[in-house]
């Protein structure tokens, strides 16, 4: 957590993916045109969010087995960091949808379920604020978190596949493979995902360290 090599790696990968994301060539696509480059910015937000929520659920399980408040603090701070990325993903998705699907919010299944998944985690934070006793708060919210995580996975990856969606890879639509069969796009997309995940983890460590300092005061 305190070493800096992975922070530098994350920064370099994000820099590379941003520059290459704007300058590298993309396959010609109807409707999407150049906006397919959003793949390097919108999708990594969600990957970062999912990794942060995974960290949170792992810390919650650790809390239940160890009763160590540090694990509880890590769980809540990774949810805080994950929500930043979730909101950024929703907003960038709405902008992208406005100019390719015609409406910012077209009640596409994946859009709706992503919003509900965010609400699940808002509920987690509200639940925490509602309980005053520290031990009780940590235990109840850890259990809630363990239920919320599989719900989030089902909402984002299972249910959208069962019905028609405008998102690629869901319903009758082809997956991203149809777009980035182009190996040049993969060369940008995968580093972008890794880079943003590392940046997300960095944000989480900063939040955790600040909150630890606040507690010691």
């Amino acid at each position, binding site marked *: 957590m305190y070493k800096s090599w992975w922070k530098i790696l994350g920064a370099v990968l994000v820099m590379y993916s*941003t520059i290459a*994301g*704007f300058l590298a060539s993309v396959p010609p696509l*109807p*409707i*999407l*045109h*150049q*906006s397919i*480059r*959003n793949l390097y*910015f*919108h999708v990594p*937000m969600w990957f970062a969010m999912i990794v942060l929520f995974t960290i949170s659920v792992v810390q919650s399980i650790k809390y239940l087995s160890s009763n160590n408040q540090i694990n509880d603090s890590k769980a809540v701070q990774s949810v805080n960091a994950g929500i*930043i990325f979730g*909101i*950024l993903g929703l*907003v*960038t998705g709405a*902008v*992208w949808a*406005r*100019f*390719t699907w*015609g409406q910012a919010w077209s009640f596409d299944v994946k859009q709706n379920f992503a919003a509900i998944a965010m609400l699940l985690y808002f509920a987690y934070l509200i639940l925490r604020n509602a309980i005053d006793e520290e031990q009780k708060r940590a235990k109840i919210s850890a259990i809630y978190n363990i239920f919320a995580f599989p719900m989030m996975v089902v909402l984002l990856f299972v249910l959208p596949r069962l019905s028609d969606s405008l998102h690629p890879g869901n319903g009758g639509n082809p997956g991203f493979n149809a777009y980035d069969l182009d190996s040049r796009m993969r060369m940008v997309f995968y580093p972008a995902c890794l880079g943003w995940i590392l940046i997300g983890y960095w*944000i989480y460590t*900063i*939040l955790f360290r*600040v909150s630890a*300092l*606040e507690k010691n*005061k």
Partner: protein
Amino acid sequence: MKKFTTTLLMLMLTLQLFAQGEGSAIADTLAGSEKIYVVVTCVAIILIGLLAFLFSIERRLKKLEKKS
């Protein structure tokens, strides 16, 4: 006068044909230039979000510094 009207009507007919040639029905400013500005907007939103996060951390640190 009749000829003029016919010519005008013919012109309008071709205009319509040109309009169909544009392809997408969404003709917004951001949709221009092959929609590259959509990407620019999204990158700007991400930057604004991260900068807002920086400011919030800054505020919390300031409080800590005041206390110590």
